[in-house]
């Protein structure tokens, strides 16, 4: 009997059509890139029982279990259940594996549980977004990074989230050591100048990296109680016009960012090219077509930005055009 496989359904189920006939691979999503180490055992088990015993660590912080014959797909899906449960992935039907693949795994840098520079718990926020937007067939790439250093390369995503803190200065605790001014000048954006032997902070220039806080020996600089984010949008890799995402919101909050990402699904559904190959089109190309104003009309629905949030009106993307 010849193999009769619906490749569309296969792909949607997070399996890959590989170059070898009859052999697939299963993509395991790890939102926020962090999981209990015991789950590695589950992955190992699937690879050894149903695949060729190897896995590839994907560029989106997942695992791809390789060398799986098509006939093992159902068993793989069943075996994936502990991973899906443990990682709390939204699912339409139990034991049927992943319900969609279009909206990619949400990646995150290591975040503030480990890194001294990160401004928030990136994994936690990634999981929160995952719960809101997955499963969905639309091709959305979201990534989170703890600080403006952008180790997670979020500017190459449709939505990139960078952690920020709004530095607070208690001048009475300042000893004029100059550490904040020096580190900001040498490693960040020169948002601090010394006036009368104490730092003056230029909030407009400040990117919220928090290096002044980390380098202050006195707790004169502290982090804002509230956590802030920069939202960069419509970056992408790809063939026609790869480009870095541009700043859309600065000093934004978590809830509104989630709202904007969710709202964008409706916008894409409305405007995606009807003839998009594989029903897949980077959101940026759609925005290029409709214009930023139309995008904002949809994305900013019911979004009430905090008074400190800065919204950039005119955004111009660069990148080579082929």
């Amino acid at each position, binding site marked *: 009997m010849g193999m009769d496989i619906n490749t569309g359904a296969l792909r949607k189920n997070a399996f890959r059509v590989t170059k070898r006939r009859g052999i697939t691979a299963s993509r395991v999503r790890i939102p926020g890139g962090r999981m209990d180490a015991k789950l590695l055992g589950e992955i190992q088990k699937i690879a050894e029982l149903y695949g060729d015993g190897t896995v590839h660590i994907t560029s989106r912080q997942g695992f791809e279990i390789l060398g799986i014959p098509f006939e093992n797909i159902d068993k793989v899906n069943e075996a994936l259940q502990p991973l899906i449960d443990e990682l709390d992935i939204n699912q339409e039907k139990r034991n049927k594996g992943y319900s969609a693949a279009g909206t990619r795994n949400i990646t995150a840098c290591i975040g*503030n549980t480990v890194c001294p520079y990160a401004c928030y718990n990136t994994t936690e926020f990634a999981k929160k977004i995952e719960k809101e937007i997955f499963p969905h067939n639309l091709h959305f790439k979201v990534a989170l990074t703890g600080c403006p250093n952008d180790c997670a390369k979020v500017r190459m995503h449709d939505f990139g989230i960078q952690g920020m803190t709004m530095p607070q200065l208690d001048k*009475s605790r300042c000893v*004029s050591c100059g550490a904040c001014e020096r580190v900001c000048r040498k490693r960040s954006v020169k948002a601090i100048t010394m006036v009368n032997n104490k730092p003056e902070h230029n909030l407009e220039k400040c990117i919220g990296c928090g290096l002044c806080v*980390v380098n202050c*020996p006195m*707790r004169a600089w502290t*982090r804002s109680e509230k956590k802030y984010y920069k939202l960069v949008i419509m970056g992408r890799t790809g063939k026609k016009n790869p480009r870095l995402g541009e700043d859309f919101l600065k000093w934004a909050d978590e809830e509104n960012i989630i709202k904007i990402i969710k709202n964008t699904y409706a916008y894409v559904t409305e405007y995606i090219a009807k003839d998009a190959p594989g029903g897949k089109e980077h959101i940026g190309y759609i925005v290029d077509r409709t214009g930023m104003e139309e995008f904002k009309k949809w994305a900013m629905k019911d979004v009430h930005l905090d008074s400190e949030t800065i919204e950039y009106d005119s955004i111009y993307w660069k990148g080579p055009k082929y």
Partner: protein
Amino acid sequence: MGYIIENKNLDLLIDKLREDYLVYAPMRYKGQGEFSDTDSIRYGEIKKASDLELEAKSEHTFKEILMPISETLFYYTEDEVKVAEAHNTKEALVFVRSCDLHSLSRLDNIYLNNGFGDFYYKRLRDKLKFVLIGCEKSYDNCFCVDMETNKSDKYAFSIDIRDGKAYFDVQEEALLKYFESVESQKADVSPLYVTENQTRVKLPSPENIDVNFINDHELWREYDKRCIGCGRCNFSCPTCTCYTMQDIFYQDNGKAGERRRVWASCMVDGYTDVAGGGAYRKRNGDRMRFKVLHKVYDYKKRFKDNNMCTGCGRCDDVCPEYISFSNSINKLYDATKGGRDD
């Protein structure tokens, strides 16, 4: 006189004390640590019992109450000078652990007994009474036992909190009334103290220190690169006393301004700069040597007193480069080959 008070009645005691005193103690400042989602433990004025942070070791000390981090000395106009008021004129109770209580004598020596007496220090010092926080256990990096500061005998009162109760030994008679005024139980109480630390130091004997030999010793060179000269060790030290004078002028009236003194660190660039661009101790290892000798040799020699270092270990707690001060004392001991042997 000893008292035991149920934790739930502590607020009442603090209310009573606050009628007459400012109460300063280690507090937990949520989210104000160096890193995201970490807290800062430092001194502040407490309003209620739950403000007290008696579990964790503070990263900064009580000294900022006695010698404000940035203290205005006087205000001036073109031809007039006006002494700044003290930041508080009320009497205050300051909660400290034994090591820190010992450090008080070091601050007193520098500010009151080294040449001139210090007007600003004295006027704050006269307002303070000290409350001993008992130590049930030794913290990371503490070496109070070897520095002989693990026990204190003189305090206004002591406090130990365990099993839902607070234990007080009240030495200052004037304070007895506060304890009598709340629901309390009389008992024999003596503050807890530690008798051993994991961190041990061997102190070099002063007679074994040959300044020429030690100053040129290879041991300091390691710190030239390891130390980043950030000054955290000094700012967290309960016995560091240095400051720098600063004049500032008001931006709206360039002819008026103030002179203040601001904490200084012998590890931070600029400390030894002289007019004309000269500087001494340019290498961080030399600054380390200056600091270590100050804490375990120079001070002792000058004041014929204890060592300046009280073994609180905060310098080790806060060093971002994991430089251990206690280890540097031991290295100094080894370099001098001899001294007090335990």
